[in-house]
């Protein structure tokens, strides 16, 4: 017996009545575009770079490494935004870590004029603002920086942010102050520590350097122990080389 009747047409909806919250995940199966960090072995380990339109999570090893994690998050945002588009910094007032200082950003090669600052009064407001920003296609990248341990930013919240990011195309970077010790839907999770910089002449501290641990990546293996330096002038990461010998006593005499 054969079925002669033509197949039923697919149910059709006019565009206006399409519900906004449809869990149509088929669209996100398309592999996301990636942005390279500029350091070839690291990009290879990441499968060609970090995914845009996803959530990435970063935290420092210790409290003192906080600024390094901040710097790394902003550098990723800069790379993700591809030198154009807005970067939104969603921070919290009254943090213990000190306020983000725009001249310092400029010194890292990140133009403070491109950054839109959002100062949330508390964690809840921060989470809502983050949702708004990541959901809107206006920002190329958003850095979400809660001040404390951020218990509200749990697995569910990270899942939501990931979904928003997939739909809007905004790259979301969650910058934590401590190791969350909870699962997360983030595509990659990084642990950042400061690394001794390649010393300049007269034993002066040199360009910003980090120790990076890629703790987790979706669809890839974790990899540890990356030592990278931020190449400010080309806005990319470079291997940290220790070619310059440090003259321990010279510094004092030369510049004192």
């Amino acid at each position, binding site marked *: 017996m054969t079925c002669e009747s033509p197949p039923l047409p697919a149910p059709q909806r006019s565009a206006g009545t399409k519900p906004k919250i449809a869990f149509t995940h088929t669209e996100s199966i398309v592999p996301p575009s990636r942005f390279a960090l500029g350091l070839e072995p690291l990009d290879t380990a990441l499968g060609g770079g970090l995914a845009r339109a996803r959530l990435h999570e970063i935290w420092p090893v210790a409290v003192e490494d906080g600024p390094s994690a901040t710097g790394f998050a902003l550098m990723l945002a800069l790379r993700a935004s591809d030198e154009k588009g807005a970067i939104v910094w969603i921070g919290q007032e009254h943090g213990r870590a000190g306020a983000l200082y725009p001249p310092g950003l400029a010194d890292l090669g990140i133009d403070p004029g491109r950054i839109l600052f959002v100062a949330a009064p508390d964690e809840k407001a921060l989470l809502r603002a983050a949702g708004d920003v990541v959901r*809107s296609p206006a920002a190329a990248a958003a850095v979400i920086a809660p001040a404390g341990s951020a218990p509200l930013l749990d697995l569910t919240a990270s899942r939501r942010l990931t979904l928003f990011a997939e739909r809007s195309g905004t790259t979301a970077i969650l910058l934590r102050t401590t190791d969350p010790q909870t699962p997360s839907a983030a595509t990659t999770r990084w642990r950042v520590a400061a690394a001794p910089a390649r010393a300049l002449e007269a034993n002066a501290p040199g360009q910003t350097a980090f120790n990076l641990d890629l703790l987790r990546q979706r669809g890839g293996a974790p990899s540890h122990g990356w030592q990278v330096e931020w190449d400010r002038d080309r806005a990319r990461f470079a291997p940290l080389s220790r070619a310059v010998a440090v003259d321990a006593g010279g*510094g004092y005499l030369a*510049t004192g």
Partner: protein
Amino acid sequence: MLAEDIWRLDRPRILPARGVGNRDAERRGGEGRPHTIGPAALPLHQPAADPPPHSGEDPPIVFVEKLNNAMRVTALSRAAMALGLTPDLTLADARARIPELIAIDRDHGAEARLLARIVAGCVRYTPMVAAEPPDGLILDVTGCTHAFDGEAGLKADLLARLKNYGITIQSAYGDTPEQARALARFGKDGADVRTLPVEALEADPAVTLALRRAGLKTIEALDQRPRKMLAARFGDLAIRLARLLGEQDRHITPERPLPPIFALRRFAEPIGRVEDALACLEELAHETAQTLLERHEGGRRFIARLFRSDGAVAAIEVGTGQPTRDPALLIRLLRERVDALADPIDPGFGFDMIRLDVGGTEPLTARQDDHLAPSRHEEELAELVDRLSARLGARRIYRVQPENTHIPECAVTRCPSSRIATWESLPEGEPPMRPLRLFDPPQPVNAVMSEVPDGPPMRFTWRGRTYGIARWEGPERIAAEWWHRRDRGGRPRDYYRVEDADGHRFWLFRHGLHESGGAAPAWYIHGLFA
């Protein structure tokens, strides 16, 4: 703002722009004739910096402007005039004569705003008021004088009011606006316009000169010549003359403020749900959008007022970064605002009236979409900013701009998100000189060890941890801004960029210098490098 402006105006510093006394105003009158009044002598400015408080005598003030590459006095206060200063003097000459002179940059924008305010105020006399920039106004008082007991009463009222604000005017009535203007500026009220000098025609200086050379010094002399000849030789001079003599009338274009934009709904039965009220607001938003569209304007501030039947009024105000008349966007913002209210709207027994006001408007013309580049990035960003502002408050969404100072904590200020400042970047190859995180105020650090008193730190303790310094650079000395300080003092700061053995980078400074006998200067941590 209003009170302050009035206070400023109150202080007598009304300055004529041209040397001759104060300026004039014009008006004209007579029963059954159109009447025009035009004061012209406006107070020229409200200086930004107020002189020291009144001490019996006004200080001489002059307003200066750059003309032909020299700073010249273009307006001056009575006190300055009494000291023998005149317009057109160079500032250097004026200073040489009167060393204690206060010189202020002339602000034409402020003058125009003041004139606009006076125009708005003169609507009490007649709806037909027009500004005659830079310093005059014309009032058509036809049929309006009865409320003030005739022309003289109206004039006295106007003069008294303006005098209250410290504004001196010259005024005259005339049959046409030009006649009133000429009488106010070149004659006096009630004088015969025919006796005025030819300058009263306010023609091109070359034309005036030519007339004078030809011996035609007064309007009367000019009037006796055949008009055709004048028209052939001097163009529009004949028209000017006819208007001045009241033979031809030109109507003034009055400044009429547009009525405020609002829409309201009254309900026979109060509505009890906030949701319904919002639905009603949506309809109102469509109505205001229509009015805005007709005016080619967009609103920047919207105030929704919900009048409860027991008399309480809930006001919800939203602002937008860019002018808009999109009802959907407006409703979204209003909803955000309602959601974010700390104390939710209580409908009580219901709302019996809902009103939507457009608080501020800006020009917004229809725009052609760019089909080649359909990205509406800027608009999306503005919309995002509006949404966040509605919930968190506009001051929490900001950008930053550099300030012209070396003091690190003052080097940055917040600015509205619509302004994008440009920042200088470091020369290539330099390591970062400023920290990524800044502590304001700086935090004290203890147990700082240095090899020599003025040398760099070797070790310090901060937040209970001791850091040994492996690499350092400095000092970068930043002096206090003594020119801003009353005591002309302030301690300099010696900044060091330091790095410990683990790579943590700090920005430390020593506050002050070592002095013999004094206590050692304190150390602070001001920031952390990435």
